[in-house]
């Protein structure tokens, strides 16, 4: 006679590989036991998983048993299964971001006058990506919105504070001019004049 503990353990393994709901009668037959006893064992198992609040639960459907995930964890499973898509910022967006990073707090008008081109869409996109945020309103005519960078912006570049932004002179110095020209020539970065 197989021990109850062994049978219960076997039931767990069997449910796991079976995938589909496992019929109590089929399971009972394999151990030559009464189906009612088998049913009790399944119910005991079900209660154990329930009481321990496990991520696995046992679901009964008309005397068939099956492992399922705990409904409370759907959100986490969704997070696990949601693919991540790599996205790069466009040259335009990088320009606007750079202006905001260096001149913050800054109004859209100021950005546009530096770039000589409208940038409503770009600002909208950067806001959605949580890289910039409205930080207040200017005292100028029409009290335009002031923009600044977010903590998420700092995290992306691995900065602790905005002070860690490279000095503008440094950027120019650190950049190898040949590389730059090459980038421009090969059109890796599209620029509009």
């Amino acid at each position: 006679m197989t021990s109850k503990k062994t049978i219960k353990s076997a039931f767990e393994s069997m449910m796991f590989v079976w995938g589909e709901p496992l019929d109590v009668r089929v399971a009972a037959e394999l151990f030559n036991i009464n189906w009612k006893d088998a049913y009790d064992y399944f119910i005991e198992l079900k209660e154990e998983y329930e009481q321990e609040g496990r991520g696995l639960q046992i679901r009964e459907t008309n005397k068939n048993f099956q492992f399922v995930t705990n409904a409370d964890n759907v959100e986490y499973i969704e997070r696990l299964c949601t693919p991540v898509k790599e996205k790069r910022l466009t040259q335009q967006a990088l320009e606007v971001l750079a202006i905001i990073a260096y001149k913050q707090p800054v109004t859209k008008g100021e950005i546009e006058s530096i770039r000589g081109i409208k940038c409503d869409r770009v600002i909208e996109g950067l806001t959605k990506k949580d890289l910039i945020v409205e930080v207040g309103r200017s005292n100028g005519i029409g009290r335009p919105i002031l923009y600044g960078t977010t903590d998420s912006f700092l995290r992306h570049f691995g900065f602790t504070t905005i002070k860690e932004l490279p000095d503008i002179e440094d950027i120019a110095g650190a950049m190898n001019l040949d590389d730059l020209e090459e980038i421009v020539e090969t059109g890796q970065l599209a620029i509009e004049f």
Partner: protein
Amino acid sequence: MAYKVKLDMFEGPFDLLVYLIENSEMNIYDIQVALITKQYLEHIEKIKALDVAVATEFMVLAAVLIEIKSKMLLPRFKPEGELGFEDDPRAELVEKILEYKKFKQAAELLDRQEEYNQSIFEKPKEDLTRYTREPDEYLNLDINQFAVAFTLFLNKKKRVEEIKKNYSRVERQKLSIEDKIKQIFKFIKEKAHKKITFNELLGEDDGKYEKIVTFMSVLEMIRLRAIHVNQTITFGDITISMNEEKRRGSHDK
């Protein structure tokens, strides 16, 4: 067929050699080379009958065995009181056999481990489509990219500003009010001093700047009383005619 079984049994020359040594219950550190070489060559003959290519692979070790066997026949120098067989012709072979045996045993271990693992079952991945949402956008940013973009932008801005400076200078030279007034006089003369309209003064390609200059010129000409202007409807076209008195007066001078 019996040969085939034999052939499959041995995974290589060392495998065969180890088998022969163990089968004859020989001490691995005291291999009877003559006997083993004889048995080894016999097996190669059998293998050759089945697969010449495979037999060739076994030949290298056969040659080694024969060489050792011949060396064994020569008297060996062994210093008094020293043990060991550093100059034993078999030493290198023994080392290689031991090395091979070590891995053969490791292979047996893997074999047992593999067998045990076959009693463990995984389950397939669930259908994840019910959990899958729109992809999360993951932003790929690095400081170099950022720096390149900003530097490019600064350079571009500098260039644009230089171009603008030159451009506006050219524009100013091209379009002064004085020049425009001369143009308008010339145009009216060409039209035989008939009434003209303001629209006729504008070229098709004229930009905002040219239009303003033209208008300013007309205003200037009114101030100088050189022309009469008339607009019958609001926003309607403006008719322009020469002030004949002024013209005559100037002619009289």
